[in-house]
C-alpha cells in the first residue's frame, strides 16, 4: 500500500520516507490535521484535476511512521469555495477528527461527517470570487482562548470579523479596504517568475470608457483590486490569550482580547515602527526570544539602494514589544552588510534561552565584475545571556558558491529543528554535490560552532525543490517534507 523507504542514516534518529502521489496537480495549499480521529495528523492537500474540478485529498498517517501514498479520501470541492483550512469545529457534536472549513463569497461553512456544508457564519467576504485553478489555504485561524477549539479572523468586505468555532461573533473591526488602479502596463516573464508593472496616474481612470491604446496590450476590460492587511494572532500583552494584530504601512495595530474572549472594535494600541524613507522593511515578525510572556517583535530593514552588490541591513528585536514604553531603543540591534539576510531564533547552546541566528548571502562580482561571480553564504549566531545578546558572533561559518555552477534551486531554512535526535537544532546547507548537509552545533567551551562533520545528508536530485522541517509525529524529532517538481515526500522520524 505504501511506497516507503528507510532514508538518511542519522546516529540517533532515522527517517522513513513516504512518497505521496497527488491525485492531480498540486495547488500548493496543504496542511496537517487529524482527519480520522486516531491522534495522528494527516495530510490535507488541494489538487486540480484534468476535469477542471478542485479536490482536497487526505492521506492518512499510520502509527506515526508513514503516510498513505494514494489519497484515503478524495473530496470534491464546490466551485463556490474560495479558500479552506482544517480544524476540529464539530467536537461538541461528537464528530471524530477534524473538519474542512470552506470559505465562500458570502459565508463560512464546515463540512460535516455526511459531507454536507454546515453554515458557520454569514459574512460578505473580501475574497469574493473563487478561482477555477486555485484553492488557497485560509490563514487567520487559531485557538485564541485556549479552549481547544478554533477561532477565526475572517476578512470581510468591511474589515475583520472574529467568530468562534460555532460562528458566534467575538469582535468586529471595520477597516478601509485598500484598492489599486489598473497599471499602465504590466509584463509577465519566465512563467510568472518576473512581473513588472508601470503604475498609472491618479486620474487615469477618470473617463469611462478607457480609450487608452495601452502600452504592451490594450487596457483590461475590467480591473478590480481589493486588499486588507493579513490579521495575525499573537499574545501581545502576555495574558495567555491571543490578540489580533495587523500592519498597515509602518503602523502596527493591536486589538487586545478581553477576559470574556471579545476583541474591541478600536485598536487597543497603535505603534509606529521605526522607519526611514531610504530603507525598506524586509522581515517584521512576532517572535519569542526572551523577556516576559508577551510577544517580541523582530524588525529587519535594508537600505533601499539596490545599485550595490551588498547593502546595509539592520536587525532589531524588541522584547515584550507591546509593553515597551520606548521603541527607539531595541533589545537587539545587529548590522550586517549583505545582499540578503534572514534571521532565525534557536537555542543553540542548550541554556534554555533562544539565540539569534543569522543567515546572510553576499554577492561578489569581483572588481567591476571582471571575475566569475560568486555568492558567499555566511552563517553566524549571537548567544544569549540573561535577556541580553552579545554583539560579537559566537561563530561564523561560510561557504562560497560559484554562481555559474549552481544547477539546482532549493528553497529551505538554514537553521532547523532537531533532525538528528539529540534535541538540539541543526544546520542545513547545500553541499557542492547537490544534496543537503545536516550538521550539528557543538559546544566550544565558551560558545558554540558548527560541527565539522556532516551528520547526515538529504539527497535532493531535482531542478527545483523545497525542503521544510516540521513536527508531524510525537517523537520530538523533526520530520521533513521534500517537494520536488510535482512530487511530495514526507520523511517521518523514528528513534533508533
Amino acid at each position, binding site marked *: 500500500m505504501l511506497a516507503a523507504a528507510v532514508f538518511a542514516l542519522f546516529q540517533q534518529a532515522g527517517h522513513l520516507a513516504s512518497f505521496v502521489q497527488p491525485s492531480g496537480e498540486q495547488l500548493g495549499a496543504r496542511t496537517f490535521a487529524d482527519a480520522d480521529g486516531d491522534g495522528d495528523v494527516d495530510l490535507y492537500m488541494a489538487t486540480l484535476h484534468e476535469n477542471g474540478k478542485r479536490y482536497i485529498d487526505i492521506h492518512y498517517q499510520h502509527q506515526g511512521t508513514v503516510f498513505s501514498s494514494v489519497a484515503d479520501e478524495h473530496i470534491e470541492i464546490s466551485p463556490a469555495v474560495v479558500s479552506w483550512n482544517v480544524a476540529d469545529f464539530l467536537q461538541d457534536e461528537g464528530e471524530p477528527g477534524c473538519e474542512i472549513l470552506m470559505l465562500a463569497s458570502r459565508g463560512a461553512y464546515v463540512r460535516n461527517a455526511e459531507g454536507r456544508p454546515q453554515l458557520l457564519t454569514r459574512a460578505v467576504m473580501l475574497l469574493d470570487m473563487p478561482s477555477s485553478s486555485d484553492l*488557497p489555504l485560509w490563514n487567520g485561524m487559531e485557538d485564541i482562548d485556549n479552549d481547544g477549539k478554533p477561532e477565526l479572523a475572517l476578512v470581510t468586505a468591511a474589515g475583520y470579523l472574529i467568530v468562534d468555532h460555532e460562528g458566534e461573533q467575538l469582535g468586529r473591526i471595520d477597516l478601509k479596504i485598500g484598492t489599486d488602479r489598473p497599471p499602465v502596463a504590466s509584463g509577465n516573464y519566465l512563467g510568472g517568475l518576473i512581473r513588472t508593472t508601470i503604475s498609472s496616474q491618479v*486620474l487615469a481612470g477618470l*473617463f469611462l470608457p478607457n480609450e487608452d491604446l495601452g502600452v504592451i496590450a490594450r487596457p483590461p*476590460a475590467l480591473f478590480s483590486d481589493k486588499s486588507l492587511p493579513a490579521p495575525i494572532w499573537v499574545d501581545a500583552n502576555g495574558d495567555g490569550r491571543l490578540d489580533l494584530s*495587523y500592519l498597515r504601512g509602518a503602523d502596527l495595530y493591536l486589538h487586545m482580547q478581553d477576559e470574556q474572549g471579545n476583541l474591541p472594535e478600536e485598536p487597543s494600541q497603535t505603534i509606529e515602527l521605526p522607519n526611514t524613507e531610504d530603507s525598506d522593511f524586509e522581515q517584521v515578525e512576532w517572535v519569542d526570544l526572551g523577556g516576559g510572556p508577551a510577544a517580541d517583535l523582530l524588525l529587519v530593514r535594508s537600505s533601499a539602494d539596490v545599485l550595490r*552588490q551588498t547593502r546595509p541591513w539592520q536587525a532589531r528585536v524588541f522584547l515584550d514589544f507591546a509593553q515597551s514604553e520606548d521603541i527607539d531603543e531595541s533589545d537587539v540591534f545587529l548590522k550586517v552588510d549583505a545582499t540578503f539576510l534572514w534571521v532565525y531564533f534557536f537555542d543553540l547552546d542548550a541554556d534554555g534561552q533562544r539565540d539569534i541566528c543569522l543567515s546572510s548571502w553576499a554577492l561578489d562580482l569581483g572588481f567591476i*565584475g571582471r571575475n566569475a561571480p560568486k555568492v558567499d553564504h555566511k552563517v553566524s549566531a549571537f548567544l544569549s545571556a540573561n535577556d541580553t545578546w552579545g554583539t560579537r558572533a559566537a561563530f561564523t561559518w561560510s561557504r562560497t558558491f560559484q554562481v555559474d555552477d*549552481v544547477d539546482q534551486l532549493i528553497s529551505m531554512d538554514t537553521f532547523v529543528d532537531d533532525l538528528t535526535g539529540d534535541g538540539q537544532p541543526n544546520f542545513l546547507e547545500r553541499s557542492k554535490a547537490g544534496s543537503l548537509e545536516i550538521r550539528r552545533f557543538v559546544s566550544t567551551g565558551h560558545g558554540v560552532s558548527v560541527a565539522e562533520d556532516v551528520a547526515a545528508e538529504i539527497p535532493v536530485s531535482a*531542478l527545483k525543490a523545497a525542503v521544510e522541517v516540521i513536527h508531524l509525529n510525537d517523537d520530538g524529532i523533526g520530520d521533513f517534507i521534500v517537494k520536488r517538481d510535482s512530487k511530495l515526500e514526507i520523511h517521518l522520524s523514528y528513534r533508533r
Partner: protein
Amino acid sequence: MIASLMVAACLQASSSDPVPMDLGVQVQHLAVAGLDDSRIGHLLSIEQRTIKLLEGGDVPGIKMEGSATLWTLADLNGDGTDEFVVLVDGQSLHKLQMTDGSLSFSEPIASGLSGLPPRGCNPGDFLYDLNGDGHPDLSLPVGDSIHLWMGNGEGFVEGPNLGALSTLDLKTGDGLMSSVSRRLVVPRLNPEDVSGDGRPDLVVNDGSSVRQYVSTAGGFPAEPTRTLDLTRFRADISNLKVDLGNLTHSVKYLVQDKWADLDGDGDLDVMILADGMVRVFLGDADGVDLSKGKPPLKVRGNVFYIYAARIDKDDIPDLVLVRVEDLGVGTLLKAALFSWEINFDFLVFRGRGDGRFETRVFRERKATLQGDSLLSVYKDEKDQFSELRRKIVRMADSDGDGERTDLVTLDSDGTLQVWLDLVSDESVLHGAIEKFLQQTLSGDGNLDVDISTLTQWTLGRTSAMTSVAEGIKPDIKMKLADWSEPHAMTVRDFDGDSREEILALRLFAPEEGAKRLVGFKIRL
C-alpha cells in the same frame, strides 16, 4: 449649482478656442452618455454608486443597485451615442434614462444572465461588438471565466462560454507583512478575421491552448471550431536543467505564436516558435488546422522573438527572428550593477508565399547593445515610462464620418496636438512594427540600435502610434493654460452633431478649499 451652469455653458459653446471648464468638484469617474432620444451626450459624474448629471441643475442623483455591480457605456441602439448601462449582480442589464426630468433605470434589457462579477461597484468594458453586426455583445464575467451573450438589437442571446481567461490572484496572507487580497483582470477580447470570410472571429489564448471560434452567418459557435494545444510543441520539461551559466537557453521551453496570412489566401496562418523550431500551420475556413503543417524550420541559438514582416521587395511576409547570445546569471548581475554588452542577431528568412520559408538566411544583421548599469538604465527608463504615462494619446473623429482617424496627444505640460486624418485604424500598430523592422534590417553592417529604441519597439503600442506622426506637422497645436498633471482627456461627441470634441481636465488643488477638476473643452 454654479459649477453645473459653467459646465452647461461650456458644453454648448461652439468656438474652436479652448473653452475653460470648472467642475467645482473632484469626482471618481466621468462619463458622457445619451439619456434620451436626442443624440446629445450628457456629462455624468460617478462617485461610488451615485450617478449625477453635471449639467443637470437640480436633477437628483441616482444610486446603482446590487452588491456586485458593473457599469459601462455602449451604443445599444446604434444611433452613434453611448448609453450608460448597468449590470446588476451579474443578472440583469439596465439602461440609465431621463424621464420626466429625473434619472431612472430602465426595465431589464437582459435578465437571467448568471454572471459572477466582483463585489462592489466597478466600471468595466463588457459591452462591445464582437461579431461585427453593429450591436454590442456582452462579455459576462463569471468568476475568472467569460461567457458571451450576443446582442442582436432587440436583446441578447446566449453565446459561447470562453472559459477561464481572466487573471484572478487570491492572497490569503501569512505574516505581518502580507495581505489578504483579490485582484481580477479581465482582458479585452480582440476579434479578428481568422477564416478570411470577412467576419470577425475570436481567438483566445490561455497560455496552454488557443481556442478558435470561427463565426458563421449564425454567429459564434458554442464550442471552439478548432483548438491548438500549445503544450505539444513545448520542449520536454523533464530535460530542463538549471544552468545559471546560460539562462537564455531556457527560451527553448517557451512557446510563442504569431498569426499572419503567410500564403496570401486571405485567412490567417500561425507560426509557432518552440523547442528551437519555427512551425507553420495553415488556416482555412475553419481556422488554423494543426494537420496542415509545413516542414519546421530549425533555428539555432536562443531565439526569443519571431515576427512576419515584408522585408524583401515582394509582398510576401518573411520570417524575422531575433536571437540573443548565451547569458548567464553572472553576466546579468554584472549588467545590472556595472556595465553591460549584449549581442543580438536579427535573421530574415524569405517567405515563399505558400506558408514555407527559405531555409537559407536571406539577411542577417548583428546588434550590440551596451551601456552602464542596467538598474540605472532602468531608473532612467522609468522616467521615460513616467513620461509615457503622463502623455495621453487618443483617436478622434472630427469630421463625423464615424471613423476615428485623427490622432490627439496631450503632454503633461499642456501641449495639445492634433493630426487630422492620420491613421486609418489600429492596424497601423502592426505597420509600425513592420516599418521598424524594414528600416532596421535594410543596408549592411551591424545595427545601430540603442536600448531606448528597443524598449519603445517592444513595449510601445502608444509610442508606435505616436511614431506615425513623427516628422509630420500637427494640424492643431496649442498650449493649454496653467496646465499640470495629473490630467485626463476624453474625445466624445458632446453636442450631437456626430463630430467629436476634446475634453481635457486636470486636478486643481487650491491653497484653500477642496481639490477640483478644471480644464478645457476643445472643438476640433
